[in-house]
């Protein structure tokens, strides 16, 4: 199969969905001629024109409100927020308007829209352009939250998100845009709410999101050399969450390491740990559930400090070893 980048996979999903459905349009800052801050929408304006690839002013609340209103009146918009940190500016429209409409209207209407945004550190963008705020949105009933880790998943999940009748927060990762992987040319859909076992294993379960999936796979390879057979599970959709898959994997291996980039306190790992600890998997656990997450600090600018703020491959390896060979006093 041909290989394309994560950014190209997202663009292809947008292009093919826009070709298929005239109600789909893109709106965001610099998404037109410039092609978006990360180049995701590059060239789409040539095919679809400025009417469907809409350059917006720097008005994140406006963008989020516009896609909500447009979705409410017959369109299926895809908004782009340049950095996930800017979602703070858009949050009223997302949280109070888009997420609530279905429920508060007693089921009269729906808001079929997608808001794409890149999260994550590692690009030297500092405290206000590096955050991973996905769990804020996971917390809001009425929203779905998707976090693809590969080009293949990015395309299939975005197609599903666009066709979903609910507001979907589609969280991309800055460092993944240039990563390559096999992606079919045809349209396909990955249903929201379906986790994937990226690497089967017997000894422990690593549940990772976004860029931490690849880091966990790299860690698993190193662990294999030591005789530790790690299973790597990617929820892909944080909400709805494929709880059954996570519980089954935890029950099988009896050891759970959760890895994400966002700070640990209040992070998604707590939710995953709660799901597993509150399920029948509890009786299969051989060790405490461990969360390896971003430190509870803003993302520093300095390259070395920035790297130390979030889990790296060696951190995952170390935590996995600790989980395998632990002494109970270590936890």
């Amino acid at each position, binding site marked *: 199969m041909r290989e394309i980048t994560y950014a190209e996979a997202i663009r292809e999903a947008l292009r093919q969905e826009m070709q298929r459905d005239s109600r789909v349009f893109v709106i965001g800052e610099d998404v037109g001629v410039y092609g978006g801050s990360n180049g995701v929408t590059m060239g789409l304006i040539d095919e679809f024109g400025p009417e469907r690839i809409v350059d917006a002013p720097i008005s994140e*609340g406006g963008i989020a409100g516009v896609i909500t*209103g447009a979705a*409410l*009146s017959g369109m299926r918009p895809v908004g782009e927020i340049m950095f996930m940190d800017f979602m703070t500016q858009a949050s009223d429209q997302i949280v109070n308007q888009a997420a609530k409409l*279905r429920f508060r*209207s*007693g089921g009269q*209407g729906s808001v079929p829209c997608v808001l794409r945004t890149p999260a994550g550190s590692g690009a030297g963008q500092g405290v206000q352009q590096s955050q991973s705020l996905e769990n804020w949105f996971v917390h809001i009933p*009425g929203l779905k939250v998707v976090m693809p880790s590969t080009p293949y998943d990015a395309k299939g999940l975005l197609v599903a998100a666009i066709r979903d009748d609910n507001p979907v927060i589609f969280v991309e990762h800055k460092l993944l845009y240039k990563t390559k992987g096999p992606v079919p040319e045809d349209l396909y859909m990955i249903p929201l709410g379906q986790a994937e076992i990226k690497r089967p294993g017997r000894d422990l379960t690593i549940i990772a999101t976004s860029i931490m999936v690849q880091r966990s796979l790299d860690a698993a390879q190193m662990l294999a050399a030591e005789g530790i057979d790690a299973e790597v599970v990617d929820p892909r959709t944080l909400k709805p969450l494929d709880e059954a898959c996570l519980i089954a994997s935890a029950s099988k291996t009896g050891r759970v390491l959760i890895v994400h980039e966002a700070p640990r306190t209040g992070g998604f790992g707590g939710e995953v740990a709660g799901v597993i600890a509150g399920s029948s998997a509890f009786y299969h656990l051989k060790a405490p559930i461990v969360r390896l997450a971003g430190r509870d600090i803003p993302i520093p600018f300095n390259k070395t400090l920035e790297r130390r703020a979030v889990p790296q491959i060696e951190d995952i390896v170390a935590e996995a070893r600790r989980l395998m060979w632990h002494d109970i006093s270590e936890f």
Partner: protein
Amino acid sequence: MMNAVTHKATAPVLVLAPPSEASPSREKRIVMLRRMWLIRAFEEKAEQIFAAGKLHGTMHLCIGQEASAVGALAALEDDDYLFSTHRGHGHSIAKGTDVNTLMAEFLGKETGCCRGRGGSMHFVDLRHGHLGTNGIVAGSLPLAVGVGLSIKMQQRRQVVLVFFGDGAVNNGAFHEAMNMAALWRLPVIFVCENNQYAYSTPVRKASSVERLSGRAAAYNMPGLTVDGNDVMAVYHAVRQAAGRARQGLGPSLIEAVTYRWRGHSKNDPNRYRTTEEIERWKEKCPIKRWQARLIADGIMSEAEVEQVRAEAYQAVEAAYAYAEMSPEACSDRLEGEVYA
């Protein structure tokens, strides 16, 4: 402390809108009176329900503001869209929402338009193009821009009208929305109901300009201030704005200067204004004014006017009876209603 900008206690009202070519028909004028009375009757009933201790939650009454709701929405077509505010009972009735389903929603009943999930502050009636009241001040303005964009993209002839209060014009969402709507020439009508107070804060203490329609200039769109207690002044202004919008000329900002007779919400001791001020505005009752006009124009007799009033109160009593008899909103599967 900084000196506040000095304004007169009640701002002068400029009536700038000339009568448009399409004046409402005789029948429509009578419907307008009926809706104004329905709003007044609904609000008074709401007040009674609260006084009787039967209200769960809060309420925001629009007594005294009936003309801006009815005048504005009478100027639109049935399939045009509406966004309303937390003070939205009047807008809903003026848009054609059935008082039975509105009252049932107010009481949290299963027969309410939103099945008791929204309540009157989060009310939606899509069948009538009513896209929602709103608990967030200025929250619906960006939504209206989205609907305007959607109308334009789908090449439909509709317009979207969004109401908001004088408090909303100081929120960032107002400015983002005004800019985008004007930039893209969208069929949006921004109607600011300036009822003089945002909760307890008077316009002069919250806004750097006294004439709120003046904000339109910053976005290169027409801004108009009208007497919000004159139903025809509001009607003509919105009619003009709708005409512009349908021709693809873009949005307008209309400031309807009015006054709310009651407090901000259910328990408001009115510490920020005088009884005299309230009484002065009661003398400018928009309904009495419209009735007098209809009688003077020979459209209705005194007796007919009285009949319309009485029927409105009867309809609201019937709505209350309907709502009271309706089953409480209930469900064991609320989680199943969150997603489409």
